[in-house]
C-alpha cells in the first residue's frame, strides 16, 4: 500500500456526491429514493463508515425546530439576529420548516433522540424565546445507522478517493477529478449533477497545541469543498465570517455547553461568574469570550462544580461517550474532576464553517450553488449556523433537487486538457527527488494564518499574510516533495489549505467594516450598515486571484421589527455600557 501507481479510470454517473459524512449520505438516500433508476455515486476521501465531523457521533441537535417547542418563524428570527442580519432567510426558513421531518426520518433509521418517560421528544431548556436542543443519548450510533441505510439502498460507495478539482463545461457542472489516497491512481467521474458535502475548512488555523491534527473540526476536513468551488468558478459567501468556537483548552474538543447548559453548567470567568449568554453561539459571544481572556478576568472555565453529584455523573456519561469520547481520557490524564474544579477553556483556531458561523459556498434554498448542476450542503455551504441537522436537511434538499435537474440534461462536454493539467499538478511533488515535505508547507501556512489572520483583524497584518502566503505558494509549487501516495494526499491538502488561507485574507480585507463580533472584528472599522449590509461573494478572478462583489441580502420572509432588533441588541450590551 501507498506506493505511487499509474492509472486513470473514467466512470459515468447521474449524480456524484463528494463527501460521505453527514449531508452526503442524506443527499444520496433522498436522490435514490426519489429516482431509484438514478446512478448515484457517493465518494469519500476516507471511509463512509466513519468519515466526517460526526465520525464518532453527536451528542445532540442544537437547532431542532419541533412543533410545540419552537416555530420556523422564531428560529429564522434568531438566526437572522445572530448573524447581524446578513441572511437569506428563505434557506433558513425552509430548513426550519422541514427539519422535523428529517428528525423523524433519522429516528426511523435507528438514530435515537432523547425521549421522556412517555416516549415523546424531550426537548431541554423550556424557554420563552424558543427551544432547540434535543439530546441524543445514543448519538454514538449515528454513522452506523447511516451506513446501514446506504447499504440497504445499494448506493455505490467509493472510499479513499479524494476529489481534487471539479470539471465544468457548457457553463455547468461536468464531473470531478479524483485521486486514490493509497495508490495515486486517478478517477475521472463524468456526472450530470455534483453535490459537494466536504465539510468545513478545519485545518486553516493552527491549534494552540501546535499539533497539526489537534483541530476542533475533524482534521480530515481540510477545505477541499471551498478550494474546488473556487477553482470551478463558484461564488463563496462571507468567508470573512470565520468560525471560532469555545472549547476545552489543549484537548481542543467542544466544551458542549449544549449538553451541560440545560443541566445547569455554564461558562464562567476566573471568579466563577457567568459572563456570556449560553443560549446559542454567535460572533458576539466569542468576542465577549475573547475580551474576558484578554482582559485579565481569565482563564475562562466550564463550570460544573456547583451541580449535584447525580447531574455531573449524567453529564460525564454523555460527554465521555459521544462525539469526542477521548475527552474522558484527557481529563483522567490531567486528573481533572468536574465535581471539584472548573475545566479550563479556550478559543479554537480559525476556520471556515457555516455549521457554526456563515462562511460557505453560496447556495440558495435548494442547495444550488452559482454553477448549474453543482450543489453544496453541510458545513461548507453558507446556510448559517446549520449544525448537524442542517447538514442532513440541506443534504436532503440537494439530493431531491439534483434528481429533477438531471432529468433534462446530458453530460456536459469538458476539455480533456483540464484533466491532463490536473494530473500534472497533482503528481508534481512525486516527480522530484527531494524537497519540502507537505507537513512543513502546511505548518508554515497555518502558522501565518494564526499570526496574521486571527481576529482582531488588522489591515497591515493581513497584507503581510498575503505576501507570506505567496512565498509559501512559490515553494509549494516548485519544491514540495512526497514519497508515497499518503503523503501525496497531504500535499493536496496543503494546497487546499493555502487556497483557503488566501481566500480568508482576501475576503477579510474586502469587507471594510466590523461585523459578527469576533469573527470579523476589524480594529480599524466600525460596523457600517450603510455600505456593508450585504453578502460578500468571492470568486476566482480572471487573473487567477480572488475577486469580490457585494450581493444584496434577499428581502426577509420573516420580518424583524425594530423593537425586536433593539431587544436583542440591548440584551447583548455589557453591563458597563448599559449603565451609561
Amino acid at each position, binding site marked *: 500500500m501507498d506506493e505511487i501507481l499509474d492509472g486513470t479510470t473514467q466512470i459515468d454517473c447521474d449524480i456524484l456526491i463528494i463527501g460521505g459524512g453527514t449531508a452526503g449520505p442524506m443527499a444520496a438516500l433522498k436522490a435514490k429514493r426519489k429516482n431509484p433508476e438514478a446512478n448515484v455515486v457517493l465518494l469519500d476521501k476516507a471511509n463512509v463508515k466513519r468519515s466526517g465531523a460526526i465520525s464518532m457521533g453527536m451528542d445532540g441537535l442544537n437547532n431542532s425546530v419541533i412543533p410545540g417547542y419552537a416555530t420556523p418563524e422564531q428560529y429564522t428570527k434568531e438566526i437572522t439576529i445572530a448573524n447581524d442580519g446578513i441572511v437569506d432567510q428563505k434557506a433558513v426558513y425552509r430548513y426550519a420548516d422541514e427539519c422535523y421531518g428529517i428528525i423523524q426520518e433519522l429516528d426511523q433509521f435507528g438514530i435515537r433522540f432523547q425521549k421522556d418517560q412517555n*416516549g415523546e421528544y424531550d426537548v431541554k431548556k423550556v424557554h420563552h424565546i424558543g427551544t432547540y436542543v434535543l439530546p441524543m443519548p445514543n448519538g454514538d450510533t449515528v454513522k452506523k445507522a447511516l*451506513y446501514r441505510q446506504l447499504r440497504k439502498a445499494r448506493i455505490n460507495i467509493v472510499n479513499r478517493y479524494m476529489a481534487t478539482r471539479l470539471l465544468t463545461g457548457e457553463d455547468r457542472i461536468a464531473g470531478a477529478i479524483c485521486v486514490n489516497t*493509497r495508490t495515486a491512481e486517478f478517477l475521472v467521474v463524468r456526472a450530470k449533477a455534483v453535490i459537494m458535502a466536504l465539510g468545513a475548512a478545519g485545518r486553516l488555523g493552527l491549534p494552540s497545541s501546535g499539533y497539526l491534527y489537534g483541530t476542533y473540526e475533524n482534521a480530515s476536513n481540510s477545505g477541499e469543498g471551498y478550494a474546488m468551488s473556487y477553482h470551478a468558478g463558484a461564488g463563496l459567501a462571507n468567508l470573512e465570517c470565520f468560525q471560532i468556537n469555545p472549547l476545552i483548552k489543549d484537548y481542543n474538543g467542544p466544551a458542549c455547553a449544549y449538553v451541560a447548559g440545560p443541566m445547569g453548567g455554564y461558562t464562567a470567568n476566573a471568579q466563577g461568574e457567568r459572563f456570556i449568554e449560553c443560549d446559542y453561539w454567535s460572533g458576539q459571544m466569542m468576542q465577549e469570550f475573547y475580551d474576558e481572556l484578554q482582559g485579565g478576568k481569565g482563564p475562562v472555565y466550564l463550570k460544573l462544580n456547583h451541580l449535584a453529584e447525580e447531574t455531573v455523573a449524567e453529564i460525564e456519561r454523555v460527554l465521555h461517550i459521544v462525539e469526542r469520547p477521548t475527552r474522558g481520557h484527557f481529563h483522567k490524564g490531567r486528573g481533572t474532576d468536574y465535581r471539584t474544579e472548573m475545566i479550563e477553556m479556550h478559543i479554537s483556531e480559525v476556520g471556515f464553517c457555516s455549521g457554526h458561523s456563515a462562511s460557505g459556498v453560496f447556495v440558495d434554498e435548494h442547495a444550488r450553488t452559482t454553477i448549474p448542476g453543482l450543489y453544496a450542503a453541510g458545513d461548507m455551504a453558507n446556510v448559517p449556523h446549520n449544525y448537524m441537522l442542517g447538514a442532513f436537511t440541506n443534504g436532503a434538499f440537494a439530493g431531491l433537487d439534483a434528481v429533477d435537474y438531471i432529468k433534462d440534461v446530458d453530460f456536459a462536454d469538458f476539455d480533456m486538457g483540464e484533466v491532463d493539467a490536473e494530473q500534472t499538478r497533482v503528481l508534481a511533488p512525486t516527480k522530484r527527488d527531494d524537497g519540502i515535505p507537505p507537513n512543513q508547507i502546511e505548518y508554515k501556512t497555518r502558522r501565518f494564518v494564526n499570526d496574521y489572520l486571527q481576529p482582531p483583524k488588522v489591515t497591515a497584518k493581513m497584507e503581510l499574510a498575503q505576501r507570506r502566503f505567496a512565498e509559501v505558494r512559490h515553494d509549494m509549487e516548485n519544491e514540495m516533495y512526497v514519497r508515497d501516495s499518503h503523503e501525496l494526499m497531504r500535499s493536496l491538502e496543503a494546497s487546499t489549505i493555502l487556497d483557503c488561507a488566501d481566500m480568508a485574507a482576501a475576503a477579510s480585507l474586502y469587507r471594510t467594516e466590523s461585523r459578527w463580533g469576533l469573527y470579523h472584528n476589524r480594529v480599524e472599522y466600525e460596523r457600517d450598515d450603510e455600505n456593508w449590509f450585504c453578502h460578500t461573494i468571492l470568486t476566482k478572478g480572471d487573473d487567477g486571484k480572488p475577486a469580490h462583489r457585494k450581493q444584496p441580502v434577499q428581502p426577509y420572509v420573516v420580518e424583524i421589527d425594530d423593537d425586536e432588533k433593539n431587544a436583542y441588541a440591548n440584551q447583548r450590551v455589557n453591563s458597563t455600557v448599559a449603565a451609561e
Partner: protein
Amino acid sequence: MTALFEDFDEIGELAEALDDPSPGARIMAVMELADSADPAAIPHLARAIADADAGVRKQAALALTDFDGPDTAAALVSALTDGDAAVVAAASVSLTELKDPAAGDAILPHLDDPDTIKLKACLAGIKELRRPEAMGPAIAALKHADAGVRAEAVGVIGWLQDQNALPALRDAAKDGETQVRRTALAALGFSKSEHAEATLVEGLKDPEWMVREAAAETLAKSGSAGCVAVLRDALQDEFWQVRLKAVRSLGRLNATEAAIEIAPMMDLPVPNLRKECAAVLGEMAVVETLPFLEKYKDDPDPDVRKNVRWALGKMAVQ
C-alpha cells in the same frame, strides 16, 4: 486498479467463512454479514450467536443491531443467557435498538423470565416497541425484587400511555428505590387526570430531591390550577434544582398569583434559578414584580440580564 466500489457480496458466500476453524476469520465473516444490511444475513448471524467462541458470539450480538424483526429479536433473546457477560451486554444493547413492533413477538414470552438480567433486557427491548400485551407483565414486574427490573417495567408502562396503568404508576411512585420513583413520576406526564396530579403532589414530599424535581417538572404537564399551592410550597425546597422546576411549572400553568413569591428569588445567589425566575416573571407579566426585575436589568450575569430585559420588554408592551 484497486476495486472501485464497495462490494455487495452474496450472503451465502460470506456465510461460508462462519465455518472457518479460526475464530478471527469467523469474526470477520460476522462483520461482513452485518455490513451487507441484507436481511438474508439474519439466520447466519443467529447461528453465529451460538458460536463456540465468545468473541464471535459478541460480534454477532453487535451485528444484529443492523437488523430488525422477530428473527433478530429471537436470536438476541437467546444470547441473554450466554455464559459470557460481554455477549449478554452486547445483546441487551442490540435489543433496545429494535424498531419493528413485530420484533416484540419474540420478546413477549420472556417477560416473566426468572433470570433477572434477561428479564431486565427484555423489558428494555419491548419498551420502544409499544406492545400493549407487555402491560400485564410489566405491572407484575413492578413487584420484582430487583430495582433495575422495576425501573425498566415503569419505562414500559410509561411508553404505553394507558390511563388504566395509573394505579400501577402510583404504586411505583412509592417504590423503595429512588430511580424507580423518579421514573414513575415522569411517566405520569401523559395523563391530565386527578389521579396523576394527586400522585405528583405526593411526590413533592419525597425525601429524595431528584424525585421531588421530577414531580415538580411533570406537574407542568399533568397539573391543574389545583396544584399551584403545593408548587408554591416547593419554591422553598432546600434544593435549587427543585425550586427551578417549580418556578418553571408555575410559569407553564400561568399561575400569576405565585409571581410575587417568585420575584424575591431573584436575590438568591444561584445563577440558573435567577435566570429561570426572570423568564417566568416575563411570561407572567405581573406589574408588582417590576421592581425586582428593574433591580437586575444590569445584572453582571448576562443570561440573567438577558432574561430580565426580555421580561421588562414584554411587560412594557402590555
